[in-house]
């Protein structure tokens, strides 16, 4: 009768050639047998050719709705943060769009909202839903790419401006009421939404949503992140803006910023604007068309 020790060694010896391959970064072989992994709990079958409702939303996230502390210690709260959007287009992209690779999505279906509109990302209370841009009828399918342009608004509360930031900054007893009016023309082309849930999967006669997300922490930095974090090393912060405020007020447009900030600070600002747009946490191909 075999001893247990001998039996163990025999079993290991028999398995050794296979075990030696484990964990090595080799090209795959064709010896696979599917493991008994956790099976999907439900299937999602997308049938093309029938319509549903596609809702486009714009989201400034908690930074805008709840306020935040900048990398240089200013507590910011927004009364209004208007962004002017146009040519919002959702794509059923095949192959899936890769923003890193750039270019345009190759789409089997597109749904466009061509008219310009201005939305206030600071609208609502701390727990408000992302801001509704528009709901449209759309063919069912996977909307896995989203693009939009930002241009100066022709009219409305942010007339003449692409981004209108209005609020209060407070630090160590000093308060600055600010209005920053920026008028660049930007375009963002993005892939699939990246976040807590999947978006853009539209079943026939059902509804789904997509989100144009704006990361204003790129502009001001994040006081909760380490100073050497990328989000802070690349951000302008609020100190340069506080330095050009007068009597506790800062009311500037792009021309005033260009003339009053240092050239380096202004270039930092201009470099950040094309990086504001995201799809959730997913990045976009970013274009600054012109500084109008």
């Amino acid at each position: 009768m075999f001893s247990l020790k001998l039996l163990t060694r025999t079993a290991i010896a028999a398995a050794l050639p296979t075990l030696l391959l484990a964990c090595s970064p080799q090209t795959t072989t064709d010896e696979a047998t599917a493991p008994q992994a956790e099976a999907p709990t439900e299937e999602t079958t997308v049938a093309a050719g029938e319509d549903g409702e596609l809702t486009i939303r714009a989201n400034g996230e908690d930074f805008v709705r709840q306020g935040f502390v900048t990398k240089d210690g200013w507590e910011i709260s927004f009364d209004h943060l208007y962004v002017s959007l146009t040519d919002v287009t959702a794509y059923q992209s095949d192959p899936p769009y890769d923003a890193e690779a750039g270019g345009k999505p190759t789409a089997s279906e597109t749904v466009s909202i061509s008219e310009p509109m201005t939305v206030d990302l600071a609208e609502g209370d701390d727990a408000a839903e992302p801001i509704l841009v528009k709901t449209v009828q759309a063919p069912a399918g996977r909307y896995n790419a989203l693009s939009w342009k930002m241009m100066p608004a022709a009219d409305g509360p942010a007339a003449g401006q692409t981004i209108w930031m209005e609020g209060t900054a407070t630090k160590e007893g000093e308060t600055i009421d600010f209005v920053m009016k920026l008028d660049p023309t930007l375009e963002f082309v993005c892939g699939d939404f990246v976040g807590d849930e999947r978006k853009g999967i539209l079943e026939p006669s059902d509804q789904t949503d997509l989100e144009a997300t704006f990361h204003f922490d790129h502009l001001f930095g994040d006081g909760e992140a380490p100073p050497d974090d990328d989000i802070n090393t690349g951000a302008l912060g609020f100190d340069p803006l506080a330095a050009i405020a007068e009597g506790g007020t800062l009311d500037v447009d792009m021309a005033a910023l260009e003339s009053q900030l240092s050239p380096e600070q202004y270039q930092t600002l201009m470099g950040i604007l094309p990086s504001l747009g995201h799809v959730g946490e997913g990045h976009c191909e970013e274009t600054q068309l012109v500084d109008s």
Partner: protein
Amino acid sequence: MACFPSWSNGLQRLGMAAIAIALAPSAAIAHGAHIQARTTTAVEVQAAYDTGEPMAEASVQVFAPDDPQTPVFTGTTDASGRYVFAPTQPGDWEVSVRQAGHGDIAVIPVEADSVIASSFTNDAGLSPLQRVIVAGAVTWGCIGTALFFWRRGKQ
């Protein structure tokens, strides 16, 4: 990462476990735990920021081709930003890797026998603008099954 800690010791335990299951009376294994081992093929994903810094301990969700809503596998990357999963069917597998407000979804075309399609180019030629997810196929040996349970147990 798909490497069993102290795998030589794990190997010995695995052999012992297999023998114990084979030799034990059937009544003794009622309600007992079963560990089966086999060889399969897995996909290894590696996520990094544009600086080259690995997305360590990042949240991972893996979606099967027939259900883009419900993740089949969830977990975290290791210190090198790596995560390994074994596709159960051919098609486009989607892998979401997220950390600290940044994330990406890679679509990995898997052919029969869990082989990554030769058309997949996400592992080369990417611009270093933000972050990258690269994927490659690895042979996931017979400790893979044990590893799977180990990973699930950590969640």
